[in-house]
């Protein structure tokens, strides 16, 4: 059997990134400020994790302006959805292996 630890996604090992992905799989799109409130993290922290996910092409960014204020929305990509699912399976396997 393959070692489940090898199946874990290095990009998704950070909890904040995992949480961002969790929000985006279950919602059509989500904006920066709502994400910040939900996760309870700082602007800079969230921005850096979002950048990492964007670099992996796990999410797409859509910048627009509402009443001249920037309104940035994020969506998960198909690639991101698959990576998230695979990481989730690996997490489950890791935890299950431990229990036996």
């Amino acid at each position: 059997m393959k070692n489940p630890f090898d199946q874990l996604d290095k990009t998704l090992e950070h909890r904040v990134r995992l949480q961002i992905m969790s929000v985006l799989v279950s919602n059509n799109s989500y904006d920066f400020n709502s994400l910040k409130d939900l996760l309870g993290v700082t602007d800079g922290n969230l921005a850096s994790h979002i950048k990492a996910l964007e670099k992996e092409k796990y999410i797409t960014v859509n910048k627009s302006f509402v009443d001249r204020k920037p309104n940035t929305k994020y969506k998960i990509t198909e690639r991101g959805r698959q990576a998230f699912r695979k990481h989730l399976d690996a997490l489950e396997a890791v935890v299950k292996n431990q229990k036996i």
Partner: protein
Amino acid sequence: MKEIHEYEKDLASIRTMMERSGKFISLSGMSGVMAGIYAIVGAVAAYRMVYYPDSPLAYRIESIEEASILTKLGVIAILVLAASIGTGLWLSNRKAIKHDTKLWNSTTKTLMINLAIPLVAGGLFILILLNAGHYGIAAPACLIFYGLALINASANLYDEVRYLGYCEIILGLIAAYLAGYGLLFWTLGFGVLHIVYGAVMYFRYDK
């Protein structure tokens, strides 16, 4: 490599994020109860204007002719609506502060759009009905469209809202069959059902 319990925490945080991000949890149960009470007060006022001195259970055959009564009914309806929305916003905002979240976010926005589509369509449809003189079918149409709006928005709310929606639609269809009892069914649907729903939500989630 992280500790095993760290991975378990990862899994748990995924679950809470998926749930919390998609649901509007700040909606206060007590605001449902208050909306129900306002609806009953409004219905009693409307009854005194339209039916009195007939019993509220009497089947009404003649329809409302005088324009002045219609205007007064409209004013009552707007007052009930404004009071319900106002109380709902106030109590939900208080609950949001208690839970350390914001009332207005992506989820609330989606929720409002999903609610608004059947409500606006239904509202316009009812205005057209009233304009054409079909007063008897207005109250059932209110209930049916309101039920549809609740079901449409229930993806972003607690599950109980969907059942409230089903009940409103069933009540609306019965009311449409018994068109003369419009006010009675309206009171049941917007008054009694809201109080029951609000009380259930209050005891399940707010206490």
